[in-house]
């Protein structure tokens, strides 16, 4: 059930990135406000308390960006998905290559289909390289 909720949240984050960014910001600001209050109760002056709260929080923008990124990341093991994509791309590109080789090329239509197969092969070959780079990133 919680996996389903996480997936719904992921889809929502993709569809409404601005809303998520606003939510994250409101949440982080609430934290700083709570810390500021605690600092004031601890005897600090308001300006000093706010400054100390910001310092103890760390880099606000970096945290906000990271939280938004996590909201938009896949809620399950993405390597399995990437591997499936890689295999699909390899099968389509291989199929196109076989088709191009075996296509009779004594007629105009045959040559045309062969060209289409080559385009498909190139396109999926590029996609395969991109997916491959995602799977095994080069340094």
């Amino acid at each position: 059930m919680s996996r389903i909720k996480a997936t719904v949240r992921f889809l929502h984050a993709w569809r409404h990135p601005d809303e998520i960014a606003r939510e994250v910001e409101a949440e982080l600001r609430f934290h700083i406000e709570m810390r500021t209050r605690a600092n004031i109760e601890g005897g600090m002056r308001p300006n000093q308390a706010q400054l100390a709260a910001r310092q103890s929080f760390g880099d606000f923008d970096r945290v906000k960006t990271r939280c938004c990124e996590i909201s938009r990341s896949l809620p399950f093991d993405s390597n399995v998905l990437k591997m499936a994509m890689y295999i699909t791309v390899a099968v389509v590109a291989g199929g196109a290559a076989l088709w191009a080789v075996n296509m009779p090329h004594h007629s105009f239509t045959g040559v045309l289909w062969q060209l289409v197969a080559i385009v498909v092969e190139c396109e999926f070959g590029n996609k395969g390289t991109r997916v491959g780079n995602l799977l095994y990133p080069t340094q």
Partner: protein
Amino acid sequence: MSKSKAGLLQGTLDMLILKALSLGALHGYGVGQRIAQISDDTLKIEEGSLYPGLYRLEQRGWVESEWDVSDNNQRAKFYKLTRTGRKQLIIEEQNWERLAGATMKALRAS
């Protein structure tokens, strides 16, 4: 170990967040406070780093959140542990005990 120097091992933060939430629903600020409280102020976490941890745990389905009103009548996002999160906490605790035991054994070896 000096209290101010007590850092966290990688992966420990997630376990501490789960532990803090196992005691009841909390907002992010409350999670930090509870971790400090249950560790007798020994574990100091950079406050901002709590949030990526909370979001990560929510993404894994171990915690869930909803907006509610806090004690001081402000809107705040509250987190609570899910059933899978509770199971995960038990696994994390067992792993941690095994690791800590092995480390102690290695340190005491003569």
